[in-house]
């Protein structure tokens, strides 16, 4: 329901159409549902975390180096994503593109290290079927990883549209929404970092 409206010049581009405003609000609410979704996965993980059956303990296989690299890449990507939206607000398509592509690169890097880590765990004898604890781990962290993967494809699609159409109320709302999504994944990662990795390692190594 796009109406052309007149606006205060200070209104950000993404809020200038009715569709843009509605979509952004709707997406915030969707993120509320995502919080419920991840909360359920976290609760499941917490309940199962010590149920390792005959398999290795979680903390036994976690490695600080890989964890820190992943965390660094993803947190930085959230910062660059913020810069991209900042450039969008300045109507600077080039800046937006540049920072978003860097964001995607960092996201890909994150995924690379995450997949390496998963392969390493599987190599060490811990896969989704090893024990309840590892099932919980792989599905929680894997769901986050799947979200990042989806996000990379989604942002790419939106960037192609920006390249084709320039910054309009419609495309800028899409960019803004993908940025909300991206930041949200960062927030989830912080909880994974703490509740899965730090607690897992502390529990194991004391």
């Amino acid at each position, binding site marked *: *329901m796009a109406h052309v409206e007149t606006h205060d010049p200070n209104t950000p581009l993404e809020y200038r159409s009715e569709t843009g405003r509605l979509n952004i609000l709707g997406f915030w609410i969707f993120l509320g549902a995502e919080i419920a979704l991840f909360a359920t996965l976290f609760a499941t993980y917490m*309940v199962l975390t010590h149920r390792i*059956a005959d398999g290795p303990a979680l903390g036994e296989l976690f490695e600080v180096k890989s964890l820190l690299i992943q965390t660094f890449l993803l947190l930085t990507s959230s910062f660059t994503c913020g810069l991209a939206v900042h450039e969008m607000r300045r109507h600077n398509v080039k800046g937006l593109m540049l920072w978003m592509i860097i964001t995607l690169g960092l996201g890909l890097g994150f995924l690379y290290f995450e997949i390496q880590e998963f392969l390493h765990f599987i190599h060490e004898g811990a896969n989704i079927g090893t024990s309840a604890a590892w099932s919980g781990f792989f599905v929680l962290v894997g769901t986050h990883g799947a979200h990042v993967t989806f996000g990379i494809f989604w942002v790419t699609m939106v960037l192609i549209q920006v390249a084709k159409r320039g910054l309009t109320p419609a495309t800028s709302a899409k960019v803004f929404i993908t940025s909300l999504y991206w930041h949200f994944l960062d927030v989830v990662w912080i909880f994974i970092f703490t509740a899965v990795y730090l607690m897992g390692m502390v529990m194991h190594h004391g």
Partner: protein
Amino acid sequence: MKWDEFFVTGDPLIYGADVSIVLTMVGILFYLTRYKKWKWLWTEWLTTVDHKKLGIMYIVSAVLMLFRGGVDALLMRTQLAVPDAKFLDSQHYNEIFTTHGTIMIIFMAMPFLIGLINVVVPLQIGARDVAYPYLNAVSFWTFFIGAMLFNISFVIGGSPSAGWTSYMPLASNELSPGPGQNYYLWGLQIAGIGTLLTGINFLVTILKMRAPGMTLFRMPMFTWSSLVTMVIIIFAFPILTVALALMSFDRLFGSHFFTLQGEGMDMLWANLFWLWGHPEVYIVILPAFGMFSEIISTFSRKTLFGYKAMIWSMLLIAGYSFLVWVHHFFTMGSGAAVNSVFSITTMAIGIPTGVKIFNWLFTMYRGKIQFTTPMLWSLGFIVNFVVGGVTGVMLAMAAADYQYHNTYFLVSHFHYVLIAGTVFACFAGLIYWYPKMFGYKLNERIGKWVFWLFTIGFNVCFMPQYFLGLDGMPRRVYTYSEESGWGPLNMVSTIGGFMMGIAFLVLVYNMYYSFRFAKRETTGDAWDGRTLEWSTPSAMPPFYNFAKIPEITGLDHFWRQKQAGKVEKLTAKDIKKIHMPSNSGVPFIMGSFFFVLGFGFVFDWIWMAILGGIGVIGTLIYRSFEYDDGYYVSEEEVIETEKISK
């Protein structure tokens, strides 16, 4: 897999169903081709984004599902009518009670209510459509595809048989092998996507699309109940999504969330299921409360008593709905302390619910009550629902629950709340808003027959079950012995069940009869209503709903305008061009790909699931690149539609 593993074979009932399915499909195809209706079907229905048409499609699907779930119920009642009956074997009986429960909750009650919400809420808030019309179509098609996927299980592959609660380890690969349980997982998963999207869509619609002047505390009660319901959906459905996904992982990829091996935890499933399942109960009862509020107020000719108390009690119920889930398994080892907490929260829900009951009674007090059929259903609701509510409080006492648990007492309790609450509301709402949807009322005389047949049948069916339960008859048993002494009451119960079946047939006949013979409405105000949906000049609102968006000055705005003799008449100069969203075939196509995806996972044919998944993603990408800003309806067309003389 051999063909006789793919199709369900060996049971004459199933062969009968096969034949009737094939005949119905041939009949429909013949009709569509013979009368050249394919194009009409595609342009008017399959591609529509109009909330009223989507609502009607939801309701039609729900009535079909009511038929399917009802047949399941009558098959069970036939088997239980006499002791040691041989009509159904135990496996078949298990399948039938599983599909009965699942279909009635997920594919009948919810879509029926969501259908009425679709039709009514945008009209009640003075909006021309929902916030996301395209997404609304996606919601419908994912629901519909989920329902179809679940429904074909009884002829292809076999039905789930682990109960609608699907407790683990009963629902695991070891104890429920084959595709049956997978149908449950994927049917619900796909339909659940649609429900979540509906939740977001209508929350934003109600928050952002209201006509000017309609503050939150001027909204009609049905809209309020829908708002609260949507909030519950948004927080409850992701839990179901996760629970279903985890069980799918257990069954498909050998993970150990709920299994007995690998230190999985079967009680985790029970907790997750009811963490969604109890809010789900309120998802299907709050819109019912909203409808009764509208109907009782309209036919008592009075403003709803205790408007704000109604709202606060709904909000309280919504909060409590997330804090009571353990009462579904008091006997499963939570311990006295935990049980006590959940026992108290459960009883506490009775308080806001009681407030609502008294508000309805006080709305009628000194009102000029008109005994129309929607009002009869509402009155029937109050009486019968209270019976269900009181037995609910009995069940809420954890210690006493050890006696009632898993008996027909419980079965009767939840049928008293779900039928007398939700189903009565679906009928009442359907009859009440029928002229809004189709331009004529259902026949009142036949309607009263339906009400009395159904309500008496309902009590004859379920009242004996309380006593059977107190006498120790467990639920989910496919037969019982002569010596148990449960035979006579079961026979009575079965007779009541068939009375309800007959009532349903009379209701369907009434739809046909009224279609043929009912007087067509000439105004938009069939019942002398109070809220905005009755303010449209024509009986069925045009696709844009309102030629001019009304300005609201208070609660029951339209009613007060009528009382003051100040109903606005549209003139040509009020009319401006109207912006509307375009139709789209993408949601239907996306739904079809979801079917491929679900069917693939059901039979563990991963290649097929991947193909379906690619199709779904393809439609998402297609939509993302499609910049369709809708279109404008010209002033001339609006003037013509509204029959305004220049």
